[in-house]
């Protein structure tokens, strides 16, 4: 479980986050949604420790992240996996070397054990046999899955995904969502997904945090989205007339 307590973030004169409180639950897909510029990425980067909040705390279980000592911080970092929007796969390394990188850096496993673990992770994301290819030799969807494989290689307790579906066709996007969701449930991981893909919201949104102009404007589950009376959320989720009609039909109006 991750708790964000009263998070503020300011860049110069601009206040991007204004006192956000939210609990990200274990074994659930926790979604951060909101329009572009709402502060989603900044919030995610604060949760993962890439940005320091101007004010507020982030708790990983019983540990206050920004108060941790060096060794404790290292331990927490070992429990974190992250899938980046542009995958952030290292171009000069093969797929296997990319996935092996966190193990090479931090584990004392033998090369054979590491290779077995890479194979297992690739199998988990349905990409067996591409060990020796380079990231530029595989499709965008496959790169996302390799990114997921690298993120889960050290058996993380926390998985962060920044726009996992950006640039993907709807079918591949659903595959990625299903993959993240099954990994989350199977391993009881606290997964935090930053997205503005409505399919993701309605398919895997177990615990949703809706940001608007740096403020937590709504929270709930995918089931509660349909019946929400929050105008800002409705405007965001059902932005097109087509979706508005769909919602009306779903509610029997």
């Amino acid at each position, binding site marked *: 479980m991750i708790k964000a307590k009263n998070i503020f973030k300011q860049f110069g004169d601009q206040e991007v986050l204004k006192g956000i409180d939210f609990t990200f639950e274990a074994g659930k897909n926790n979604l951060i949604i909101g329009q572009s510029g709402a502060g989603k990425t900044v919030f995610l*980067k604060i949760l993962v420790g890439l940005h320091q909040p101007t004010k507020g705390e982030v708790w990983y279980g019983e540990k206050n992240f920004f108060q941790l000592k060096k060794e404790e911080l290292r331990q927490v*970092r*070992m429990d974190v996996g992250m899938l*980046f*929007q542009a995958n952030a796969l290292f*171009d000069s390394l093969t797929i296997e070397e990319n996935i092996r*990188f966190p193990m090479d850096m*931090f584990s004392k496993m033998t090369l054979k054990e590491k290779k077995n673990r890479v194979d297992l992770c690739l199998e988990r994301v349905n990409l067996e046999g591409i060990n020796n290819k380079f990231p530029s030799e595989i499709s965008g969807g496959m790169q996302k899955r390799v990114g997921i494989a690298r993120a889960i290689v050290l058996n993380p307790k926390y998985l962060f995904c920044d726009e996992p579906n950006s640039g993907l066709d709807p079918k591949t996007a659903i595959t990625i969502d299903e993959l993240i969701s099954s990994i989350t449930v199977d391993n009881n991981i606290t997964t935090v997904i930053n997205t503005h893909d409505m399919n993701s919201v309605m398919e895997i949104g177990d615990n949703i945090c809706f940001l608007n102009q740096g403020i937590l404007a709504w929270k709930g589950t995918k089931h509660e989205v349909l019946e929400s009376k929050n105008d800002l959320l409705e405007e965001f989720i059902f932005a097109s007339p087509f979706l508005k009609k769909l919602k009306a039909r779903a509610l029997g109006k």
Partner: protein
Amino acid sequence: MIVFDWLEHFGRWVVWQKQIFKKPENLGMYYKETIRQMYDIGIGSLPIVFLIAIFIGAVTVIQFYYQMEGTLIPPYYIGYIVRDMMIIELAPTFTNLVLAGKVGSNMAAELGGMRQKEHIDAMEVMGVNTSAYLVLPKVIAAVSMIPILVSLAAFVGVIGGYLASVPSGLFTAAEYIQGLRAFFIPWNVTIMFVKAVSFAFILTSVSCYQGYFVKGGSIELGQASTRAVVYSDILILLADYFIAVVLTG
């Protein structure tokens, strides 16, 4: 205010050095990266360093011959002048100015590209000390390989001088070699190595700083790469002056 900007960058650079020289997380990974960088900097730069050194040696001989022709100074002095100029000044300074363009801009572009593609963020999330892992191997590789390149440049420069003068009959091989062996001061070699190591550290450190902290898109990356070369060159020339004052004073 340019002065405050410079001071801010300098302060940030000093604080950053503390991160770079921290204990590595995994010596094996750092070792592999250092060897890769040593190959890139050392072997990768040999052709350009040789080419420049041979022409510098050749031009030095021809121009000194032109200036000294008809004077009472014996011709073998040209060999002596070329040797000392290559050792004390031309090999360390020219080699590093050229390497600032080749190696420095490459380092800035590599790190800047990694920053923009979120590779550095990805490593940070994994718990890697990216300042150390990405920069320390480059510094070690440069500080160990560039003095070797500089020594080779001095040697090749002297050969360049020979090739430009003896076959064309400016003076005899015996005169040139007599000059090379005359008035040798071993301290000059120490000066060459002090310069080589100092310049190598400057060009690596400045270039990596420009790349590591790049913000924005491809235009900013290009600007950072240019700044890496320009600032390295300026600081190398300044350091050259101070080392000359201190070590020859």
